[in-house]
């Protein structure tokens, strides 16, 4: 089985799905000749040509708005927005149209666009290049929001998105684009949305997380193991919909929960998870649900970036807190 990093796994999935479905078109800024600024679409233009792999003018609302027209006409557009911080010109098209077309037409139209975008911090980037805006999309009814944590998952989730009947926001954590490789099967497989993955089993505390923070949480869990604290790590894989069942059954078992995300805390995914646990497992809790998140500030530039984002130590402190409560 080939070993791939996240970039390679997504690239391979695009190749595979485009071959199977000639309705798929890839469009965005620099996705063609350049192969994308992170090289995720590398080689596609050579194989599928300029009709299906399109270097667009520099206009996000143009890209996404036009993709809506393509989608209702019957194509399957995969739009790349170069960085998560640059989706905003298209936010109106996403919120006011993509998310609502099925509802407004009582199901006569669907809008199964896949919007891919590099996501998150930790790469010492410029302003607007290190954001974690998932709440802004997860909060919008009608959208599915996927954030993979590994090459294997990325392939299965993207393949699912490329066969889905509804729009998908697919955020690719740039911190782990090339951080590690793992075995990714060549054959096609899908991972359904709304199904979390137990990354590792444990009995003292549940760490709920997703994206690049999964690896950071694993690092913390490894260190905690030396202190005889056993962590169960739940990777949400999709932050909308959220897999409530897996969360609740894990928390019922451990009685303690720490949520980790690189998005700001206020109204973040952690708040939603905490609310669901309160509603469904309050009496199983031995401690309050603790959140380890970025702070409620504009993502700082590199000199201050490390203070801002969660790290293994901050997670360990939170776990110690719920253990000692």
């Amino acid at each position, binding site marked *: 089985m080939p070993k791939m990093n996240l970039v390679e796994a997504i690239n391979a999935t695009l190749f595979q799905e485009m071959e199977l479905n000639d309705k798929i078109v890839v469009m965005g*800024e620099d996705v063609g000749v350049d192969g994308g600024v992170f090289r995720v679409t590398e080689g596609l233009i050579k194989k599928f040509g300029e009709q299906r792999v399109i270097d667009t*003018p520099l*206009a*996000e*609302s143009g890209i996404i708005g036009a993709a809506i027209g393509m989608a209702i006409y019957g194509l399957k557009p995969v739009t790349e927005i170069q960085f998560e911080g640059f989706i905003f010109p298209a936010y109106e098209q996403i919120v006011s149209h993509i998310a609502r077309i099925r509802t407004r037409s009582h199901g006569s139209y669907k809008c199964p666009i896949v919007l891919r975008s590099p996501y998150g911090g930790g790469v010492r980037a410029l302003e607007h290049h290190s954001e974690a805006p998932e709440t802004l999309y997860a909060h919008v009814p009608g959208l599915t929001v996927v954030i993979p944590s590994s090459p294997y998952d990325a392939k299965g989730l993207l393949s699912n998105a490329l066969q889905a009947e509804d729009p998908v926001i697919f955020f690719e954590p740039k911190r782990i684009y090339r951080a590690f490789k793992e075995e990714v099967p060549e054959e096609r497989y899908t991972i359904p949305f709304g199904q979390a993955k137990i990354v590792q089993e444990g009995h003292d505390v549940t760490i709920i997380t997703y994206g690049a923070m999964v690896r950071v949480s694993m690092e913390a869990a490894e260190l905690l193991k030396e202190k005889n604290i056993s962590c169960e790590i739940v990777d949400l894989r999709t932050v909308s919909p959220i897999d409530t069942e897996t969360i609740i059954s894990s928390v019922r078992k451990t009685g303690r929960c720490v949520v980790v995300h690189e998005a700001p805390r206020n109204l973040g995914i952690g708040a939603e998870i905490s609310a669901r646990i309160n509603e469904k497992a309050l009496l199983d809790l031995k401690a309050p649900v603790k959140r380890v998140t970025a702070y409620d500030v504009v993502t700082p*530039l590199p000199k201050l970036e490390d203070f801002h984002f969660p790290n293994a130590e901050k997670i360990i402190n939170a776990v110690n807190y719920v253990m000692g409560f």
Partner: protein
Amino acid sequence: MPIETVFEGKVKYIQVIDKDGNADEKLDPKLPKDLLLRMYITMVVTRMFDDKALKLQRQGRIYTYPPCLGQEAAQIGSIAALNEEDWFFPSYREHGGYLWRGTEMKWMFVYLMGSELGMKIPEGKHNFLVSIPIATQTLHAVGAAWAAKILNHKVATMVYFGDGATSEGDFHEAMNFAGVFKTPTVFLNQNNQWAISVPRKKQTAAKTIAQKALAYGFEGVQVDGNDVLAVYRATKEAIDKAHRGEGPTLIEALTYRMSHHTTADDWTKYRDSAEVEQWKERDPVKRFRIYLERNGYWNEDLEKKTVERATSEIEKAIEEAESMKLDNPEDVFMYTYSKMPPHLVEQMNELMEYLKNKS
């Protein structure tokens, strides 16, 4: 009834110094020597700053850097036509513009070293911040100009943006507002032929960018953006016009991005080195130098002294920037609101507590 033509537009192209340094007598704005020298020296310093920044990035001493090599005339020729009170709205590539407008080099390095501190605006300067989200700043410049108009100030604004930026909706909304409200705004388009890997011809089917102004009801001109005097001439006219209350102008400066888009980019992936070589012959700094030498304003000795002075100025700026403490954890929270709300106080305490126990 015969069919009439209801609109016809024209766009002028201006060049003052040709690529071999010959100036057109009639078009030469005949600027005073001290202004010419200040412009030339700033162009030389900009190029040296640019070169140094590129090297620092390769050594891991600054983060991603967008070079402006080749665009010195487009930047300095235009910014030099601005009065002190006029406002400067840059994109992210206007290092020359910042230098002209009095930003100390050390602060530019501080920003590139990854600290917001470097973006503090020098007291009393009408400079705005770097704007990375493409084309967004065009609207800010229109709004500021509009405010000046409402308040009866004789102040204009000038906004920089690239060829790629003209594809964004914000650019068109800015142009439309400027036209409708006749704001004293100069739209300074640096058409450097590329938006990362996308060539200018893929951004617009129009022959020129300048002609887009006509659709919004005002004038657009195209200039040789590697000819500092042509850029100056067109900008000065546009600024004077703005000050007279006669509304906005779009200037398309034809230039070329000689280097990578940023240090994270590799242009060999998408463009021909023959094209880059061709543009080398139109080098804006060399061309201006020939002009100055022919007028008896410049010589090898002055060049050497300028380079020496700039070298030590740049070294000193780097030294100062690198010796500053830029990782004060409280700064994460200090500037989000005018008064820190309780939840941020709590989060700041949480971070400080964590850091205390860490060491």
